Structure formats: C-alpha cells, structure tokens
C-alpha cells in the first residue's frame, strides 16, 4: 500500500484486537477489519460498505463517497484539471514524482480531493471528498486549491459546502507549501462564515494533523461517522511523548463527541437525509434574502 507510512503512525489504538488476516481470495469476498467476518462484496456494497455483522464503517473512496451522497442527476465536476507538481524535487526512498504517478495510477485521480456540485434530495450543495488511497489523503497544494475553488462556488451560488475528510494530514513532500494550505483553506471558510453560507464537515476514518487542525474542525456543524479515528497527533507520537498507555477508545468519534469536539455521530445510511435536514434549516435565511 502506498500509504504505509500512515499505517505506521495511525491506527495503533485498538489495533491489537483486530482479527488475524486469513487467506481470502481477493475479489468477491472481503474480511471485516473489525469483527473478522467474511463478507460477500456485492452485499457489502449494497450495505454502503458497512459491515452487516458489526456495523463497522469501512473506508470508502472519494467517488464512491460522493455517489452515496449526491443525487444521481445534475452533477458537475469542479476543478478536475488541477495537477500536483514536484516544486521541491523531493526525494526520500522514492521520488515524490514517482509517488504521484503511482498514486494517480492506483486511484485514477489527479490528487487526493474530488469536488462536485449537485443536489441532495433536490437541495443544491457543493461536496468535496478526500481520497485516502491517494498518498493517505494528504493535503498539498492541489487539495488546498481545489477546496478553495469548491468553496468559491458555494459562495457564488450561495449554497452550502459539505466536506468528507479522510486524511493523514499535510503532505510532507510539499513541505511548507502544504502547511500553508491549512491557512488558505481556513481563510476561505472565514469568508463563508461572513456570508452565512453553511459548511458541514464530516470526519471519516481517519482524520489527523494538518487537515484535522484546519478545515475539518471548522464546520458550522461537525459530524463524524461511527468509530472513526480523529485527532491532531497520531497515537504513536502521543504514546512516545507521554510514555503511558492511551485510554480505551482514545481519539474515536465517540471520544470526540464526549469531549465536545463534534456535534454528532451519524450512521452512513442516514448521512444524506440528516445533512439535508440540517442544511435546509441553516440555509433558510439565504432563500429568504434572494
């Protein structure tokens, strides 16, 4: 997997209890990473990639995410042509250039964010979704710029923005350019607030670092899927720093709800209807004004 570095810093919490991987033929069957049940793929898809046995919400790609959310008709892709470049000539064990090409090939996307305008139950919205399979959903210049372009469409059309985040944080290979995307995306959200255009941030497994510490925590309403890992610092970094075991359920959605960081946890099946209900209330003032 291209994001092995992320695996390393992210889900150590609760991992020990994960089931042992068995030999399953790739393709038609998938093993639930939480309860270990073998699931028939067509059935899993019908169930929105949620384990029918234990209700575990599996990670889904950006396009599938948007498919599950927007109405089928009337969608428009936003800023699809933006492409990453390797301004710094960054090279670790691999060249950043090669990592980009590999990620593009694996995902079919130019970078880690997909943006579309469309409707949910006939209610117009702009949606952006992170592609975690693209370098761990990391935020570099393209993600930042595309997020801003999507938000600008929200501002122009006075329609809400919904963001589904799944990201390890800022993209190291773009160094300070990545860090500045935190400021850039937060600035456009400040404009949205000034104009009274709603922004709902939906945090899905996992959201960390520079994405968590910018756009993802700035929703007028912050929503999470059940049991998602969400935090600023990764569990391993914290464990190494404080030298103590992390509490059970640390950095899970339920933990964040308990500590007041998010407004609600919403099951994938209910996501569309619940957000529609919230957005129609927050947007009433916009239709009255026009």
């Amino acid at each position, binding site marked *: 997997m291209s994001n092995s570095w992320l695996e390393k810093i992210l889900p150590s919490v609760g991992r020990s209890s994960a089931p042992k991987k068995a030999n399953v033929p790739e393709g038609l069957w998938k093993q639930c990473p939480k309860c270990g049940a073998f699931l028939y793929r067509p059935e899993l898809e019908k169930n929105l990639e949620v384990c029918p046995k234990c209700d575990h919400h599996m990670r889904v790609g950006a396009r599938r995410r948007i498919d599950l959310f927007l109405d089928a008709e009337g969608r428009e892709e936003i800023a699809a042509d933006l492409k990453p470049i390797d301004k710094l000539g960054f090279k670790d064990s691999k060249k950043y250039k090669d990592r980009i090409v590999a990620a593009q090939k694996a995902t079919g996307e130019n970078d880690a964010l997909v943006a579309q305008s469309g409707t949910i139950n006939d209610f117009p919205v702009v949606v952006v979704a992170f592609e975690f399979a693209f370098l761990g959903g990391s935020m570099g210049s393209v993600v930042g710029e595309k997020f801003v372009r999507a938000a600008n469409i929200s501002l122009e059309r006075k329609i809400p923005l919904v963001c589904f985040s799944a990201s390890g944080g800022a993209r190291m290979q773009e160094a*300070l350019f990545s860090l500045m995307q935190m400021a850039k995306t937060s600035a456009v959200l400040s404009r949205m607030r000034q104009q009274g255009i709603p922004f709902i941030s939906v945090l899905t497994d996992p959201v960390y670092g520079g994405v968590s510490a910018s756009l993802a925590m700035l929703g007028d309403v912050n929503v999470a899927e059940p049991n998602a890992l969400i935090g600023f610092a990764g569990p391993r970094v914290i464990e190494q720093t404080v030298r103590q075991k992390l509490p059970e359920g640390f950095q899970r959605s339920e933990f964040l709800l308990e500590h007041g960081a998010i407004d609600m946890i919403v099951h994938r099946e209910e996501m569309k209807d619940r957000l529609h209900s919230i957005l129609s209330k927050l947007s009433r003032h916009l239709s009255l004004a026009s």
Partner: protein
Amino acid sequence: MNPNYLDFEQPIAELESKIDELRLVVGDSEINLTEEIDRLKGRSLSLTESIFSDLSPWQVAQVARHPQRPYTLDYIKRIFTDFEELHGDRAIGDDKAIVGGIANLDGKPVMIIGHEKGRTVKEKVARNFGMPNPEGYRKALRLMETAERFKLPVLTFIDTPGAYPGIEAEERGQSEAIAKNLLVMSSLKTPIISTVIGEGGSGGALAIGVCDHLMMMQFSTYSVISPEGCASILWKSAEYASKAAEAMGLNASRLYELELVDQIIPEPLGGGHRDLDQTADSLKAGLIENLDKLSAKPVDVLLEDRYQRLMSFGALA
C-alpha cells in the same frame, strides 16, 4: 566538546579555547603573545565566516535550536517598552508555552504574542519547552481579539517544536484550537506581522502565524513537520533528519527563494546568540518599517491583500 558550540562549530571552539589559553599565559609571563593572539582571532573569524556562509539546512536547524538562541522574552526586553503580560485563556488556565501582552514599539502600542521555550531547566519544564496546549492557542486568540477591539497591531514571534502531542491536549481539542486561530487570523481587522525567531514547527507555529507580512530570522526554520519526524516516517529512522531537512528546504533562505517568506532579518555572524542586542536591533528595525507600511493601509485593503496573499500559496499545474 564545548557545549556552547554546535558540533559543526567545534573547529571554531578549538581556536577560541587556544586564544583563551594564550591570554592566561600572557597574564603571568613576560612573553608578548599579542601578535599570536591577533592571528588566531583573525583565523577564528574567517573560519566562522566560511562555516556560516554555507550552512546546510540541518545545520541551520541546529542553530535555530541553539540552547542560547534568543527567545521571545529576550526580544520583548530589548525591543519594546512598558510590557504588561496578559495571562490565561479564561477557561482552563494559563499556558506558559505562549506569552502575550501589550507594550510600546517605538512609542506606539502593540499586542505581542509569542512562543516561549524557557531558558533554565525549571523554566523549560514550566513552559513545556515551548509546546503549547490548546489553552495556549486560545489565550493567543483572546489576545488577538482584544487587539482587534482596541486597534492594536499584532506582532507574533514563532519558536516552537510544535503543538504538544499529549492526551489532555487531544481531549481539550488541540486541532480545533489551531484551526480556529487560522480562521480568525485570516480576517482579523488589524495588521499582523509574524516573525519566525527559531523553530517554526508545523501547525503549532502556523497557529500564531497567519499574517500580512512574514519574516524569518536568518538562521531560523519553518516546516510542515520536524526533520526528525519526517525522517522517521519517510526514511524509517530519525537518523536521516539531515536528509529530511535538506529535502524539505526548511531554512529561511530557501523559503525566501520559494516566495513563502517575505523578508529575512539578518543575524550577527555565528547566529543571534552571539550578540543579542545587535540581533534585537535588526529585528526591531524590520518590525517598525513594516508596521508603518501596514498601518497606512485602510482595513479593507489590508484584509483583501492578506486574503490574496493566502490564496496565492501553492505550487501546482
């Protein structure tokens, strides 16, 4: 090894200790060693010049973390008058990793906010080595909003390894605290000048670093992750920190070339700790000059310029 010198400065340290020895000899003998001492001093100077004219990013990172590096409180003492420290976030406590308060700069009132690492061991512990918890960022936010109300320009000084990665920090919303500052600073209705004085460690630095004019001290660094952190993830070992520092280009001169930083403040030969007064003078001049320029702008122009500056960040096709 002389602890006052970094490892790549040890040749300088050896020369300096020779000079000290000769001076002692001069003290209790008739031999005239002035010429020899002057010669060694000259060599020490030219050696320092040659070493510091071509520092690698990793070496700059070490100077930026030098134990005698000037910190926010050192600059406050030398640059401002009538400093009144303001404490607390009004909710959890007073995070000493961030100091703030009002003072005069060249006779004009300003709001100061900066990371503070602490000099002595005891102070370092009390200040958590300059790694703020959420309440530190929320104190900073409170002070920025106070500054906006009273039309005080905000001057921030960045010097942190990063926001603290602790259990309580997560419980109290480290991410949200940082994010909120980014949001508010992007549209705060008063000029903001940020200066990286030492280590600009990631989101924990940026959380007081959204500004109209970004300056970096000559031997400071600013990066998305520490060189050690980057190395341990991408190279699988923190030992590759120097390679990571090189790859990220975290030093002031590189970031200036990339147009991510607006201005570099020169430091004395050998780094700011060699002459605190001179370093502070040079920073003070930069602050006054830019503050005059920014203060002349009407607020709507200031905010639009700041917004466009933020929107311009990115390298893409």
